[in-house]
């Protein structure tokens, strides 16, 4: 769970998981619990599916589901993720988070084959998004696919919850409960997302409103968070 902790020094503290864009875009603060559940069952699952397919591709899955068909490459996974994340502002932010994660992961697991594949891919193809790096970490650590899904969902919800305390006045205990509720709401989706093996399998459950808020937020000159 440390991997999904906001205190992990990989740059996550400057991100709000789309919460600041939502609040500045006019979402009411009392809608945050429902919004967290909404993310956990849509956008977060795109990220989770991307991480699961990446982990299978990089050979770290230990749950016997097998890897993707021959010929599938990391670039295919990245393309599938990008197609499901249409807002450039969100893709940029995800790539920035991916760089931070990769920097940390290469320090922690320098000899893991999955990290070497990412490093080799990074140079010619540009920076990899957070979900792909999370998948590589799952491969490097042998994290089961279902836990990879849960980790990705929790990371997203907790990032928003940590940011919320800086954006709205409230009892810090409240968002802790909302994070648990968001993770519970994602639980019925875990088996389906954990079974993704090809880039096509990655859920396409985006959120156009989130994308729109992200684009508007990227143009603001007054903001606390990167995205």
């Amino acid at each position, binding site marked *: 769970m440390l991997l999904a902790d906001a*205190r*992990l*020094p*990989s*740059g*996550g*503290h*400057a*991100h*709000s998981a789309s919460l600041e864009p939502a609040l500045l875009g006019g979402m009411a603060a009392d809608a945050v619990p429902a919004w967290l559940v909404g993310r956990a069952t849509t956008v977060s699952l795109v990220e989770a599916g991307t991480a699961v397919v990446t982990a299978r591709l990089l050979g770290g899955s230990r749950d016997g589901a097998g890897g993707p068909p021959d010929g599938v490459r990391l670039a295919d996974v990245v393309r599938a993720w990008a197609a499901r994340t249409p807002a450039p502002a969100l893709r940029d932010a995800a790539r*920035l988070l991916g*760089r*931070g994660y*990769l*920097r*940390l992961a*290469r*320090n922690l697991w*320098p000899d893991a084959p999955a990290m070497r594949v990412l*490093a080799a891919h*990074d*140079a010619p193809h540009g*920076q990899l998004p957070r979900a792909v790096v999370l998948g590589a970490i799952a491969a490097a650590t042998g994290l089961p696919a279902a836990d990879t899904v849960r980790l990705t969902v929790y990371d997203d919800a907790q990032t928003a919850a940590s*940011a919320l305390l*800086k954006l709205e006045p409230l009892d810090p205990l409240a968002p802790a409960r909302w994070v648990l509720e968001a993770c519970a709401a994602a639980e019925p989706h875990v088996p389906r997302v954990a079974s993704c093996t090809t880039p096509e399998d990655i859920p396409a459950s985006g959120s156009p409103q989130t994308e729109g808020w992200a684009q508007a937020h990227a143009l603001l*000159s*007054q*903001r*606390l*968070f*990167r995205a």
Partner: protein
Amino acid sequence: MPDSAVDPVSAAVSGLLPDGAPAPAARALRLGVAGPVGVGKSSLIATVCRALGAELRIGVITNDIYTDEDARFLRSAGVLDPERIRAVETGACPHTAIRDDVTANLLAAEDLERDFDPLDLVIIESGGDNLTATFSPALVDAQIFVLDVAGGGDVARKGGPGIGRADLLVVNKTDLAPHVGVDVAQMVADASAARENRAVVALSRTDDTSVAELRAWVLGMLNSFRSGTHVAQDPGPMAPHFHADEDGGYVHSHDEGQAHDHAHTH
């Protein structure tokens, strides 16, 4: 070789640095500028750019708390190509971004150095924080801590990690001293005592002599960085401080590099 601003583990792993960053010897000096809100950090950076822009290739990263105002101020000051000034969001934690999790600033520094290769100097401005906010040596090679006379003549005497052990302490806005009833010479003397005679510059951007002094310090630091004689210092989370107790108290130092427990109460 001063390599403390580079991730030492990954550097040791493969000789490859993350994100294709150049090896330490080849890259720019990363200079942090910290200090409380309103002491003139952005203005000091503009002064450095004005004084050295003709001879050094400079890039600047700002860490505003809530806006990109500092970046816009520096761009509008016309002292540097606006493209060479980048703003980094800090998630409301300017302290975290320069000390506990320097990722965003490191990535921005690497990007600047890559986009404008070669650079001589990358200045990283902290979002103004309190007296305990200092840069991690994982981010900068050297750091300037800034106070101003309007903040009160006694601040330098109070000490703290930045005041006590930054590579340079600047007492800024000396031109305001007569208006706020501060004795600059006394403030500098207090600062020098708190710093055990580490460098102090009493600065006013309208006083050319003081600007020349700042300029000379930056060039001197750049030279010692390049020659490998400068080792990045961590001013540390706590300065040496006095503990009162029944026996009269004792001075407690945190800078000996030795492990110690905190059985006593601070």
